[in-house]
């Protein structure tokens, strides 16, 4: 028996090795949310990001202009302000007073620079050069001067991981600014889409999409993009909307982190609803 096993191992050692290593990889993949895995990742990310930052600053040496960064920051503030004003124009008095209490333009913005990107077709991640030292926390929204870019997913002392809109794992509650039609924005690998919008709802090409009041991840009224295309399903009952983001995610370089964390009370209420 022992001889047989020994022969088996020696004849199929490549396959056995593959199976063992694959099982280890997949079990580690399942343990990603464990504190030990997060700790390991934050140590490695924090140390290696130093190298990335040096390379990144070398690459963007021509772009490192302080005054331009300030202008970008001001632009981002103005973008949020403009969007708020557009909303005021579109909504009735009652909604306006409700939204005034959730003004996104008053949140402080923390400027950050992308130092590395993980580019895959459906797993967009950035590493930015600001971390918990700047009071950045997991769950803070990330924007640029055009609109929403993503969400902080991991934070180390000096660096943070941003899950961007081109990540199929990120779902965002959004609303159409003109008509207040709500939906869930997802990335399907090619486009940002909002699925299952009844065809009876008033949706027009060019409608502005922004974060919804119902979002527990993002504060309301952050501009996301505009409706590029609407397609009906076979029965003609539901629309799938294709959204063109305002922010050029692939070319993004300078970002702003909105210093806000999702309301614990809303999260708690949502958890109670699930229970």
């Amino acid at each position, binding site marked *: 028996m022992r001889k047989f096993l020994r022969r088996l191992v020696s004849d199929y*050692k490549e396959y056995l090795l593959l199976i063992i290593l694959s099982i280890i990889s*997949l079990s580690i993949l399942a*343990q990603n949310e464990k504190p030990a895995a997060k700790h390991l990742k934050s140590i490695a990310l924090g140390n290696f990001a130093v190298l990335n930052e040096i390379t990144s600053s070398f*690459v963007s040496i021509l772009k490192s202009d302080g005054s331009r960064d300030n202008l970008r920051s001001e632009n981002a503030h103005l973008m949020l302000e403009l969007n708020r004003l557009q909303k005021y124009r579109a909504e009735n008095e009652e909604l306006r007073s409700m939204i005034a209490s959730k003004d996104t333009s008053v949140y402080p913005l923390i400027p950050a620079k992308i130092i590395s990107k993980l580019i895959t077709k459906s797993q967009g991640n950035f590493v930015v050069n600001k971390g918990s030292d700047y009071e950045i926390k997991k769950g803070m929204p990330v924007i640029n001067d055009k609109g929403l870019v993503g969400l902080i997913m991991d934070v180390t002392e000096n660096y943070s991981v941003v899950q961007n809109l081109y990540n*199929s794992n990120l779902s965002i509650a959004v609303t159409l600014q003109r008509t207040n039609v709500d939906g869930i924005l*997802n990335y399907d*690998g090619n486009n940002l889409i909002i699925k299952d919008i009844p065809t009876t709802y008033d949706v027009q090409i060019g409608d502005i999409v922004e974060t919804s009041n119902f979002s527990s991840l993002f504060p309301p009224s952050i501009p996301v993009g505009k409706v590029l295309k609407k397609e009906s399903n076979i029965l003609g009952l539901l629309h799938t909307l294709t959204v063109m983001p305002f922010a050029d995610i692939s070319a993004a370089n300078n970002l702003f982190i909105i210093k806000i964390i999702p309301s614990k009370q809303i999260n708690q209420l949502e958890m109670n609803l699930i229970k």
Partner: protein
Amino acid sequence: MNIQYLKPILFFIPLAVVQLVIVPLISISNIAPNLVFVLIAYFTLRHGQIYGTILGFILGFLLDIISGGLIGAFMFSFTVSSFVVGYFYGENKIDINLSTYFLLFILFICGSINSFLFAVVSSSNSNLSLFFMMLEEGILPGLYTALFGLPIVIFHPKEGI
């Protein structure tokens, strides 16, 4: 750790920086080459299947923890794809594999497998069709990765052929 594994790890460090900082600048519609995989394939074709599988596992783990992605995703995809690269290994075929355009074919096939497996294990979006994943997350990145085998084909000494 075996000294044999130190060399690729030393090459890995600058290559990982390039992968995370420079490669995004040359990505086309979020389709990017994987230079770390080219490194793994190169060493697998030089040292064999078992060596390559272990190297894929180690470098996959390292890339996972420094890229901010899911730990285990590159680990799994590199392990399996470098195992497949190992099938092209032969003690007498090292120079042929590395000095001819056949290397590009190997990189294309195995790079496609690598990108596809990475997409499968790291994406939680069930709306993605298998065809889409095979084409846009497998074949196209595989094709782009294969292009980066050209410097190896051009500069690898062709004495043995």
